[in-house]
Structures are given as C-alpha cells and as structure tokens.
C-alpha cells in the first residue's frame, strides 16, 4: 500500500484522460473535488491487488450518464460514496477497498473520491484498462462473474437497487433506464467483488499506469521534450500517424456519441489519410480501406504539441493530432474477451489483429 501524493493525483487526471481513448468524460471536475481534499491534508492510499485477502469485499464504482449533463449537474464527491454505502446496507457488510470500473476518463478518479469519504484504500486495478461505453465490456463480464446487484443513486435521495439480472447486457439495459430517469447522471456501485475475483479477473496496476503516463507527460513538458515520445516510452506504445483533422461527423444515437473523423498526414505521413470511427471512444482506425488498429487495442488521439488527449466530443477541424496505440489488457485478447469488446461487439465485421503482434 502506498499513499498517493498531490503530484500523483494531478498526473492521474492526465493519464486517465489518455487512457479514456477519446471517451470516459473529462476528469476535470473529479480532479477539482480531489484537490479540495488534498489541500485540506487528506490523502488516499493505493493498495496492490496482491495485498487483498481472498474474502475481502471490494466495491466497484462509476458515475454513469451523459457527458453534456456532467458539465451542468456537477457530481458531488459524496455521491459516489453514497452509492457504496447503499450497497453496504444492502449486503450487510463493509467493503475493504474500492476500485474503478474503468480507469479511462473521469471514472478513473471517482474511486478516489469514494475512498476519501469512506476512509478505505483504492485498489490499483480496474475492469477495462481504458474506457468502454457498456456494462458488459469489462473483464468481470469476460470472466462470467455475477453482474448483480447494483446500486444507483442521485443527489435527491433517490436510490435504486437492481437485485438481479439474467446477464450483463440486461444489467446494462436496466441500469441505463434508471440513469435516464434520475436525470442522466447517477453514481453507481456495481456488483461487489471478492479479493479473489479481483486478483483473478481485474486488470492490475492501471491506476499506477495512468499516474506513470501523466508523470511522463509532465516531465517531458518540464524539460521541453516531446511528450508523445514520453508516452510511447512509458507504456510501450506504438506510433501510428501524425496529421491534422480534415473532417468530423458526429451524431447522437441510442444515447451514444457516434461518428467518424478524417485526418490527413503531415511530415512523414504526408500524402496519407486515415479515418477513425468512434462510439463514445475511438473504435477503429482505417487506412486505404484496411483496419490499421481496432478495439481492444487502445487508440489514443493526442494533441501533437502538448501531448494532451483529445476526446471524441471535442475533436475539431484543423487540430494537429498524433494517433498512437497502447496495448490492450491480455484478458480481452482471448476469444471470449473479443466477444465482449472486439470489433464485432461494435458492429464491425472484421477480425481483430493487434498492432502489437506484428
């Protein structure tokens, strides 16, 4: 177990946004909330999954909802803790620690806010290693662990418990409905996990990974070095393309932000053109009709100068971008894993071929 420093939480916000692969919501508000506690001297402990006992109870948390609503109905830091307490009341036992369902985006920091209020550590792990839009797109679902129960709470004292669903997809459907009814922004505590389940199925050390990424960017910027080179080095990433955005198409369907963007190459990539499809997150990069890289490999679009991640919601014409890939968690590379998060899970009839295999 180690204590996270103020520099760690700043780095985490940068790294989580990169691991958000275009989605996951900005970590800005969560960081502001966390800074207030850190300014008051509060600190969060990070616990390695290996330090957990097999029968420890672990809370898995996230904020669910529409990014536009996130900008207005700001989530209080207490709400995520309330979702966990509601689960404790339902189960009749206390949690040993809390973990994020997804490290990518704002949810990569929400587990820390729950930890602050509940005075328990955060597990250095998550169930995606990035951000994904749906409940069944987790390592726990790949592991066929129980999808229930779930608590969903809003700030007005409306709290729901989903006692049982027949599948992860049903959990997605039911919890999404609750979320919409509560104002399209809720705090949720997902199906609780045992220490043993976390050790077997969670994706380990993703909080540390996000912090390392953020530190690499900060260090590169301090030395006026190339932040993107630092990111690639820190996480054995692969450079794919450098260019500028020449077109963006965006539409909101079935609660998702879908669309595609085109980029034209600059420098060494001059004369080449790519297309990136997205559904909340970046899903597939195409060049000359061929998939260059696809989910579950992490596709990150970065500002070519600052190395800052660019989201699918904010990308716009003329931006100078560098596209890189980071390796996916091994759990998603199995046939079962690919069923849940491979290109076909997003409606693309192509076989997944990792850029890290060639």
């Amino acid at each position: 177990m180690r204590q996270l420093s103020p520099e760690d939480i700043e780095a985490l916000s940068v790294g989580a946004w990169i691991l958000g692969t275009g989605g996951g919501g900005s970590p800005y508000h969560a960081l502001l909330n966390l800074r207030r506690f850190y300014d008051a001297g509060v600190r969060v402990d990070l616990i390695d999954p290996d330090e957990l006992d097999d029968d420890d109870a672990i809370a898995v948390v996230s904020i669910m909802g529409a990014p536009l609503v996130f900008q207005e109905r700001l989530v209080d830091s207490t709400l995520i803790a309330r979702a966990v307490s509601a689960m404790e009341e339902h189960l009749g036992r206390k949690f040993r620690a809390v973990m994020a369902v997804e490290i990518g985006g704002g949810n990569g920091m929400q587990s820390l806010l729950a930890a602050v209020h509940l005075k328990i550590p955060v597990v250095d792990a998550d169930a995606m290693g990035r951000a994904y839009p749906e409940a069944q797109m987790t390592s726990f679902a790949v592991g066929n662990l129980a999808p229930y129960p779930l608590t969903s709470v809003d700030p007005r004292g409306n709290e729901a418990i989903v006692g049982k669903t027949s599948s992860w997809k049903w959990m997605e459907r039911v919890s999404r409905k609750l979320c919409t009814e509560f104002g399209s922004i809720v705090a949720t505590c997902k199906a609780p996990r045992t220490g043993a389940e976390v050790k077997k199925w969670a994706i380990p050390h993703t909080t540390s990974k996000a912090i390392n990424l953020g530190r690499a960017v900060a260090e590169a910027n301090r030395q006026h070095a190339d932040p993107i080179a630092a990111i690639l080095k820190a996480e054995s990433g692969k450079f794919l393309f450098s260019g500028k955005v020449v077109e963006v198409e965006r539409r909101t369907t079935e609660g998702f932000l879908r669309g595609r963007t085109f980029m034209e190459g600059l420098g060494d990539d001059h004369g080449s053109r790519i297309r990136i499809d997205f559904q909340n997150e970046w899903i597939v990069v195409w060049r000359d009709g061929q998939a260059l890289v696809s989910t579950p490999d992490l596709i990150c679009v970065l500002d070519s100068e600052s190395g800052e991640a660019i989201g699918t919601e904010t990308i716009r014409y003329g931006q100078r971008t560098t596209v890189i890939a980071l390796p996916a968690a091994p759990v998603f590379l199995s046939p079962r894993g690919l069923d849940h998060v491979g290109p076909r899970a997003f409606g693309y009839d192509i076989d997944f071929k990792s850029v890290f295999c060639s």
Partner: protein
Amino acid sequence: MRRIGIDVGGTNTDAVLIDGGKVVQGVKVATTADVTSGVAAAIEALDLSAEHGSGLDALMIGTTHFINAVVQRRHLTKVAVIRVALPATSSLPPFTDWPAGLAELANGGVFQIEGGHDYDGRRFAPLDTAGARRIAREIRNLGLKYVVVNALFSPLDPSDEEAVAAILREEIPDVSVTCAHLLGGIGLLERENAAILNASLIALARETITAFEHAKSKVGLNAPLFVTQNDGTVAEASRAATYPVFSFASGATNSMRGAAYLSGLKDAVVVDVGGTTADFGYLRNGFPREANAVVHIGGVRTLFRMPDLVSIGLGGGSHIDLEAATIGPLSVGYRLSTEALVFGGNSVTATDIGVAAGLIELGDRKRVAHIAADDVKRILRRCKQMLEENVDRMKTSASDITLIAVGGGAFLVPEELQGVGRVVRVQHGGCANAVGAAIAQVSGEVDQVFQGLTRDEAVASARKLAESRAVEAGADSESLALVEAEDTPIAYLPGNAMRVRVKVVGNIRSTRMGQTAKEKVTCQSVS
C-alpha cells in the same frame, strides 16, 4: 448616415468619421491609461466643424478596457453569488478553480439553495424561495450591490433565476443582478464564472460609459452613444454598462467586421496583423464565427459567446532570429519606431525583413542591406508557413477560402498561400477596426421556451419579440434581418415545449431625414 467609430486598442485609439458610407476622416491617437481621455482626444482630433460634424447619428465605441481590468486585476467589485442547484453541485462552490488573487478581489460571499431544472426540462428540485429571501437580506446587510444568480440548467429554463432576481430586487432596492442564463449556455461553472466577471465589472462599466458620455458632451456631440459587442453588433450605452463581458473581444470583432465591410465579402478568413500578434478569425455571413469552446479570461474558465479567434506571435514588431530562422513570439511592441533596424535601432524585426524584401518602404533601407538575401527568404518562408497553418486552423472544410489581410503588418501576408484561393487587401485596411465600430448594427435576441405552439408559430413569435427588442435597442425596423434561428424540442414538458433561439440585426435608426442607403465604404483619408 454620419457616425463616428472609435476603437480603443492596447496601443492606439483609432477613430473614423463615416458619412454616406464613406470614411471621410481617420485619426490615430495614443491610448491613455484612463481610456476616456484618449477617446476625448480622438474625437477632438476629428474635424467636426459644421461641414463635417453636424447631424451625427451615432458615436460607437469599442474598448478592451473591461477585459483588461480582469487581466490586470484592477477596478473589480465584490460580488455575491447565489447558486440554485442544491442538492447537487455543492462540493464545487462558486469561485472553484479561480486564481486566488482574482477570487479574493471578486468574492463577496457565496450562497447555495435548492432549485433548478434537469436536462429534459423537468424540475430538479423545488425552488427554496424562503431561503432566497433570507439570503437577499443577508446580502443587503453585507452591503453588497452586485449579485449573480445561477440556476441548474437555466439556459433551458431560466424561471428560477428570474424568481430569485425578483426577490433580490424586492429586498435590496438598488441591487444589480446578473442572471447567468443571459451570459452562457450549458456548463454550470463556466457560465457562472462569466456571470461573476460580468457583475464584478458593472461598476467600472457604468463609470467608463458615464465618462464617455462626458467626453462626448465636452466636444459638443449630442448623438447617442453605442458600445460594440463581441458578436459585431452594438448595444446602447445603458445596456452595455449592464453586460460588460459582451464587450470583451470587441477589438478583434471590429477588425473583422470592418474587413468584411471594406471588402464587400461576407464569407472569408480574416487576418489582422498588428505589431505584436496576428489574429485570425472566420467571417460567416459578415459576422465572426463564435467559439463553441471554453475560453480562459484572466485565468478563469468561461463559456459564453466570444468570437472564434486564434492569435499568434507574428506582427510587424516581432523579433527575428536570423540564425534559427524564427519569428516572435516576443515583439518590440510600441517601441518599433525606435528599436527596429530601419528606424535606427538594434533589433531585427519582421518590419526590417519586410523592408529588406521590398514588401514595404519604411525608415532607412540601407540599415538592412547587410541581411543576406537567403536569410530574408528563409524568414519569409517561415512567416508564410505560420500564416498557412493558422488559416487552416480556422477553416471548416478543406476547400480553398478567401483571405482578407488587414492591419499595419498586412505586408507580411504573401499573395499566394496554400489553401487560400485569393488574398484580398482593402485600401487603408489599418482603419478596419474603427470602421467595424462605425458600421456596427443593433441586434435583438430571444432565447426562451415556448409551449402549446407549433414549431413555425413558436419561431415566428420569437422573431417578433426579437424584432421589438432590436427596435427598442435603437434599430430601424425597416432594416431588420434574421441572422440566427434554432429550435430544440424539450421532452417531458407538457404542450410540445421547445427552446427557440432567434437573433435579428438591423441598422441604427437615423435621427435625420433622408438617410443614405448602404454604400461601399472606401478609406480616403486615414492618417
């Protein structure tokens, strides 16, 4: 139509007199620290003798005074902020993530009460009117006069902000209330921040505009005073004093509007190359395109209607590094006339390169004869690259656009640029900003929720309301034109509810008979 247009910039205060669509006089004086004496000097420098000055229709002033107050942290007033969003949002109270020094100057007290709406128009929580009244009395006892009210999802339903404002006015007789929904869209903190900056500047704005009025009467003008806005229109002085943030970016906007008017073009990219920076903007339908993104002002995140601008360190005074072939971002600024090589100084500036390349005749050309032709070429190539890259950033599609080059450093813009169909230069483009102020129109806006009407009926009633607001603001009813109309259905509210946003613009009503129709303006005598 006779008007005086004045643009108060960081270095110079430009003024033009426009008559019958022609710029008949132009003057440039130094901007003064108090702003108003520079304005008075500019008006006095114009020849307003009987022949030229009689029957003025309007005096239009654009000023960066208010945004400078934020940046320089001067003249700000303490503000009380009431946020109506409990039981949500409380852990990020007003002034969160403000620079400490600025928050200290502006924060007179923050209050949070229950109320507000949800994204779908349904009520989020009942409005705590008793709490609002209690807080209003507390604010009165604190002696605060400037109050911000910001309610959850108020851009969709402003009723809670209006209700709290009414209570404040009942309890505090001479209160000035800034309702956040009038300043920004969705984005609770950013909208609130814009509203706080606004409220904090109202005292300064009132003082400044009163001083402008004094300057005006001192020189014997009785034409009405208008202040130019971020969107390229003008507001009557009294309204401008209530919404100073709407004047924040008027300098750049005025340049763009002036460029549009002088060139007769309505859709183009404009580059205004000054002494220190080159500002790029995009004209759509004759008006600057709005930025739909967070804008930092004095270190504060805001989100309100500002023109979409890119500013880079490239201007006539930019320092040149011949060895590295780089330009700027540092500039000699207003010291150009003493520090540039051609003026006898020791700094190599972009102006010196322009003179060496024969792009402009200024100062003593012999003093730049030693610069190698290859170096000049390399610098100009770099300059071209910088221009191309930023013109491209402003474009929304890959096809070629027209570029209008204005400002004193426009000689740095070459005739041929990648992605640019043609470069347009307007005669005496140096006066574009003051012309932009002088030709500005008046707008009327409506942004509200309509119920029980068809879409067409709702848009029509909104338009009618916007038109009456424009006329109220001084527009000629004959000249009104629709520039924006959008409607968004709101689910869950009964009676086919929709949010309608309409904006109309029109020419300022002439106070004289026989006004001239719009004519093409040519700059004739600009000093």
